[in-house]
């Protein structure tokens, strides 16, 4: 059962008819490519498109999608602009507030979209989507729902991601572990670390098996894997034994490697890809989004073996180790139109093109972003890589944390207290009760 069906079923038949007519009228102009939302190539104009994908592979993929859509929409000229992650949204907010300087299309954080929509930062795309026959069922349910505010969508889902465990097969094999059977549970992980950790003669760390905070991962994922549900009846719960247990488990890893300062010192030896700790052999297993696969593919790192020789690094992927239940989660981004954008018609055409199956597949091809369009996620082009299917399968254990309108960013209350737990200044229980108290008080203030 699709929850979204009901939202679309109640629409008045007249609207449906109008929509159908528009779709029919638009079809001849659209391409015959499957899954393409009908486009209107007559629309013209210059549009500015903001994204935060600055690394070589992604910047290149963005340009590819833009070029593809330029072919489809010859009368539109797209300028793509890179903005640092984070700054992209604050700059847009300032621009929208000033009614000047906002882009026509922006990559928006799906998990914050309804909150921003409530403040009037993005345009309601509900009517446009309906008129052009955008089919909500084409997208994963939870993804489409995350774009809605008061029943209308504020951005077409462009991509999603999924957190998985990457591990270095060469090192696993060398240490006598089965490279085809990476640790699945926390116990197995801890045991594997005994075989994988390497210490220098002076007692400092030379190789880390695993670090629960290295990669694109935080306490939230581990708590989910420990069976915790963060939002219960619309209210965020962080002060819970399952979370406390998770933090203590994470702290044990930090202590295993000599405390917070030591771990930071160790990790800071490594830089950006291709010198990151995983590729350079400093960390054997890490949790990251599927997109990390594209960085590995791009740099093709080599692994240093014990005998001093090097080999091409062979890496594997599996689900993040769990305690109570296998878990992961998916974030991701939509293409949205800021309020006050100069050229919303052209922006909408570009969004339809980029967020359609061909656009999403093209974007995913080497970035390993997961298409938010279900059928695109298993497109033959993508499935050509034998590793690809696993990422899509991993989404099966994905846990979707419900949106809390009164305080969408409640997780920051947890996150900003964690370092004090890691250094041992504050106990997990203290941090959690303080975070909970503040979440409760902010939610009360906002209601």
């Amino acid at each position, binding site marked *: 059962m699709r929850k979204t069906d009901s939202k679309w079923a109640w629409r008045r038949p007249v609207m449906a008819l109008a929509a159908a007519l528009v779709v029919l009228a638009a079809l001849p102009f659209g391409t015959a490519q499957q899954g393409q939302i009908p486009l209107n190539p007559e629309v013209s104009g210059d549009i500015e498109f903001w994204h935060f994908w*600055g690394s070589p592979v992604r910047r290149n993929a963005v340009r590819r999608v833009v070029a593809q859509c330029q072919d489809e929409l010859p009368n539109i000229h797209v300028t793509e602009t890179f903005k640092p992650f984070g700054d992209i949204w604050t700059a847009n907010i300032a*621009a929208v*507030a*000033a*009614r*000047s*300087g906002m882009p026509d299309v922006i990559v928006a954080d799906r998990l914050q979209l309804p909150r921003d929509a409530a403040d009037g930062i993005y345009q309601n795309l509900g009517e446009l989507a309906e008129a052009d026959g955008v089919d909500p069922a084409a997208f994963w349910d939870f993804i489409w729902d995350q774009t809605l505010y008061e029943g209308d969508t504020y951005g077409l889902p462009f991509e999603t991601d999924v957190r998985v465990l990457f591990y270095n097969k060469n090192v696993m094999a060398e240490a006598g572990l089965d490279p085809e059977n990476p640790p699945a549970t926390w116990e197995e992980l801890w045991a594997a670390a005994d075989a994988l950790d390497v210490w220098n003669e002076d007692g400092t760390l030379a190789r880390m098996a695993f670090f629960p905070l290295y990669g694109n991962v935080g306490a939230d994922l581990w708590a989910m894997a420990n069976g915790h549900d963060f939002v219960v009846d619309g209210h965020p719960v962080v002060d819970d034994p399952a979370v406390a247990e998770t933090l203590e488990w994470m702290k044990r890893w930090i202590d295993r490697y000599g405390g917070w300062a030591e771990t930071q010192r160790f990790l800071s030896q490594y830089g950006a890809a291709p010198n990151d700790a995983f590729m350079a052999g400093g960390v054997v297993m890490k949790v990251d989004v599927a997109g990390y696969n594209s960085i590995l593919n791009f740099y093709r790192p080599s692994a240093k073996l014990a005998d001093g020789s090097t080999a091409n690094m062979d890496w594997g992927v599996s689900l993040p180790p769990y305690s109570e239940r296998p878990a992961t989660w998916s974030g991701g981004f939509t293409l949205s139109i800021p309020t006050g954008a100069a050229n919303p018609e052209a922006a909408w055409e570009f969004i339809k093109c980029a967020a359609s199956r061909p656009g999403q597949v093209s974007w995913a091809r080497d970035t390993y972003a997961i298409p938010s369009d279900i059928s695109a996620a298993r497109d033959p082009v993508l499935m050509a890589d034998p590793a690809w299917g696993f990422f899509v399968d991993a989404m099966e254990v994905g846990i979707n944390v419900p949106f809390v309108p009164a305080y969408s960013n409640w997780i920051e209350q947890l996150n900003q207290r964690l370092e004090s737990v890691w250094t041992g200044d504050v106990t997990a229980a203290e941090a959690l009760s303080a975070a909970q108290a503040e979440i409760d008080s902010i939610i009360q203030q906002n209601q």
Partner: protein
Amino acid sequence: MAVSSVPPTLQAGKAPLLPPRRSFSPFASVWHFLAWLLLVGIAVLFLVPLLWMISTALKDPSELMRNNWIPQHLAWENFSYALSYGMWFRWTYNSIVITLFSVVGMVLSSAMVAYAFARLKWPGRDILFGVVLATMMMPGVVLMIPQFIIFARLPAFGFQGSQTWVNTFLPLIVPAFTGSAFYIFLLRQFMRGVPMELSESAKIDGASELRIFWNIVMPLSKPALATIAIFSFQGAWQDFMGPLIYLQSERLYTLQLGLRQFEFAAGGAPAWNWLMAVSLLVMLPVLVVFLAFQRYFIEGISITGMGGR
């Protein structure tokens, strides 16, 4: 209240020349030698970060994590890579335009206003000067938000492709043309020291007030004007918060915003060798200005008591 925040060295109207060398020795000469060694040590410590920056800018990624000073291979390509990444030339141009206009605006307007307070007599002058002093006490952040709201509502009629002043250079330039309380105060103290007789005799010769200002008082205030020009240059060139709030389009970025953008381009941890390479290039103009006008910097700071940051 504000008057007491003037360093005692500030003496109205005296040109801020370095005082004559004077020997003054509370210690025996062996102490002097030790003091000199200490100074040498301090000077080295002060220079080390800069040298480290140069060293890092010339390193290969493979050498980054070794704390060696001389790279085995001088990676000049770091500079060309870093420069090939962004719109550095555009951003440099933007920085130059904004800095130029702010400096000119700041110096001209501050000088005019200081002239009014120092050498003209008009009703309300002393009260308004009190207001000038009072605004020096006002922290900038109190005004940050309402100023943003005002600029967000002022129409720009499509200037730099924008409907309002936000996302144009105007909020960064126009306020400079209204002077700064601190500079007005400094210049007023300075201009009061220019002998009044010069103005009197010019007036008898039929010179207008504007002429006296421009041809007599301004040339005689050169040291103070240079100081102000230098500090407003430094302030505008290195301003971060202003451009961060007011400039949204990449093509309008200044170098400071460009640097932050570049930091993120690698995705995740910054590539320090590239970052140091561009940072070095961005610092270069200020460094050149400093070395060229060193005297004004050092004398200026002594009279103004204004910190560089």
